[in-house]
């Protein structure tokens, strides 16, 4: 990507180009400055005040909101849940995406059709996804328990010593909540990374595989010695962005638990409470906008730190490659 950009710069050496470029970027810059940069700066300002939406006065409190958040054990619960979600979603999601890409890259007939099918969930709004999965996860009448029940029944039928199937409380038992949200998220997002992995696979020349086949390498050896190392830039890229995305998880838990009237706010025993959601709840349910902004900036700091680390990883990787 970097090579491509620097190549373009070389072919366009004229001086006025800088200014022309700015003009072309202006429509976006104006919107970006108005709707992202300015609010971000204003958010920092707000986080230094005790700022209740209905209050007439907003006293300056310095870093009090930040220290309050750091000594608020629910903040840490939310952070722990978020990290747990990231740990569940990122490896699993990338495995599924890679698996799909590997399977689809060798499909000759109907390949595009399958790509569209697996990509489609990415396009669906999270509200719809959650409503769909709420039915799938339903303990009494859900599809998942129905299938699990018949699988267990069949295994028992052939004589395996399994206990009778007890329907699993996917959404109402605290220890199942995050795995359930993670599974849903993998289903929803796997298609996005699948497309990237497919593109990555496309860049690996057939001659490597041919040579390996001639040397008598089996499929597993070919994958391990050719595909995996040559796919590493793609893999790293996907991992980095999955981590950043997963840290900001909000909609899954919000729609599943918090948007429901009278339901437990973000899941049984707070098991689905994530940092982005806690920020929302403080800002827009308790109207403590200063405190919410402070949580937002703590999340920002975490994500920024991870971004820097991962950027290092990525650039180190591409240097090693060139």
């Amino acid at each position, binding site marked *: 990507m970097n090579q491509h950009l620097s190549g373009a710069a070389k072919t366009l050496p004229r001086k006025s180009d800088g200014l022309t470029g700015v003009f072309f970027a202006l429509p976006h810059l104006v919107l970006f400055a108005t709707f*992202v940069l300015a609010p971000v700066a204003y958010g920092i300002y707000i986080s230094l005040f005790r700022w209740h939406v209905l209050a007439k006065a907003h006293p300056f409190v310095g870093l009090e909101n930040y220290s309050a958040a750091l000594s608020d054990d629910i903040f840490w619960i939310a952070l722990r849940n978020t990290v747990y979600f990231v740990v569940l979603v990122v490896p699993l999601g990338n495995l599924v995406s890679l698996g799909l890409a590997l399977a689809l890259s060798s499909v000759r007939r109907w390949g595009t059709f399958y790509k569209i099918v697996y990509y489609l969930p990415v396009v669906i709004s999270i509200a719809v996804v959650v409503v769909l999965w709420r039915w799938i996860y339903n303990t009494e009448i859900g599809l998942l328990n129905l299938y699990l029940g018949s699988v267990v029944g069949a295994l028992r039928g052939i004589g395996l010593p399994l206990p009778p199937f007890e329907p699993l409380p996917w959404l109402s038992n605290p220890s199942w909540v995050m795995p359930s949200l993670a599974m849903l998220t993998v289903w929803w997002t796997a298609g996005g990374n699948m497309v990237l992995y497919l593109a990555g696979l496309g860049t690996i020349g057939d001659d490597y595989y041919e040579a390996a086949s001639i040397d008598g390498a089996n499929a597993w050896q070919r994958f391990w010695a050719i595909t995996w190392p040559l796919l590493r830039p793609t893999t790293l890229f996907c991992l980095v962005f999955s981590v950043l995305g997963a840290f900001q998880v909000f909609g899954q838990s919000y729609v599943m638990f918090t948007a429901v009237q009278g339901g437990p706010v973000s899941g049984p025993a707070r098991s689905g409470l994530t940092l982005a959601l806690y920020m929302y709840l403080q800002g827009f349910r308790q109207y403590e*906008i200063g405190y919410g902004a402070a949580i937002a900036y703590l999340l920002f700091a975490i994500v920024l730190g991870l971004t820097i680390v991962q950027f290092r990883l990525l650039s180190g990787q591409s240097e090693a490659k060139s």
Partner: protein
Amino acid sequence: MLQFLLSEIMFPITCRLSASFIPANKVLPRCALSALALVGLSLSLVGCVSPSPATDGIASASSGKTVIDFWNGFTGPDGKAMDEMVRRFRKANPTIEVRTQTIPWGTYYDKLTLSLAYGGAPDVFVMHAGRLPEFASFGTLQPLDDFYAEAEALGEKKFAPVPWRATFYEGKQVALPLDVHPIGLYYNTKLFKEAGIVDAQGRAKPPKTFDEFIEAARRMTKDTNGDGRTDQWGFVFTWQRTNWLTIAGQFGASILSPDGKRSALDSPQNLRALQLMHDLIYKYKVAPKPEGVDAWLAFRQGKVGMALEGIYMLASLEEQKGLSFAGAPVPQFGPVKAAWGGSHLLCQPKGIAPEQSRAAWKLMQFLSDQSLLWARAGQVPARSDIQGSPQFGALHVQTQFATQLPFVQYEPLHPKSNAIFPLIEPGIEAVMLDIAAPKEAMRDVTRRVNQVLERP
């Protein structure tokens, strides 16, 4: 316009945050920044605007009509009844144009709060009794004392005392009470008769004491298809908050200390109430564990003998085909008489223009006068004269639930009530799921609630 920006753009932004978890096709800096977009953007919009008096000043001189906006959250059958009442008002008052906006309760207060803070507030709006101190403490509600002084027909004597007291904040009266909606016992008369829990005339007999309750619940809890799993329950917990407030109230527990400065949730009374709720599931085994069960649906489908729910759920049972049910006061679990209840109050925003205010008061009075219609939708009118009317007496469930009015308990009428319930509820839930003992659960909750109460 501003109203539009605040409410219609902020929510999509919230959603964008979730949408931003579509990995891989995002530009890196945006990923890092989008966490801030939610709080940041909405705030910048908010910050640009100076708070203005509530009305948008559409008291249009041209048409000669006073236009008032009325917001409520009645989206169910109660919404139909409310629409009918407003229609009658329009007919009786051709010079006043009422524009009703119905916003689901889930987002109602978000929208109301922003409108009160930054302009565009309605002229009349519904407020729950438990939320009133919060809004009143920020000075967002218009005092109505002058109107009450003028309207002699609408004095204290016309109202039940509990909702009447809830309309005051620090000595000023800021609301008109429309109803009381207490919790009560719904019971499946068919299951009662099958289990032989009947009176001398062979009618289903609702339990009055704890012993009767347990006895009835035990007789109705069974495995009807013989697969080894209980599929018919004597009792279910539906909304834990109201069930707990009722039972805790009956044990004499209060949520806050009398001065409202400390949590009283770790009191022995509350621990006893929580233990009893826990025991119904794990010791007496007459109620299912609150996981994987849509409790209210199960009651509607006739798989449950008893449930404690608000009177406003009546319509959802009446439309259920094949369900025979009845209502009764909550059985006596503890030593004190108590039942949770809420009230819908009608309020006006602070700083409302006098003309709008007068028209709004007219609407409020009218709705109060029409509250028999309101009662039919599943409410007990706050007006004691209407409660005493023969037409109300003909509403069986409503009159049963209404007998509890003298000892109905609201959520604490405290400005931080809304802030402490999200801290209390996970604690109750932990007890009900058998994750924590009542004592540990309430120790944690108490610490958190005290933190919030200490915060200025």
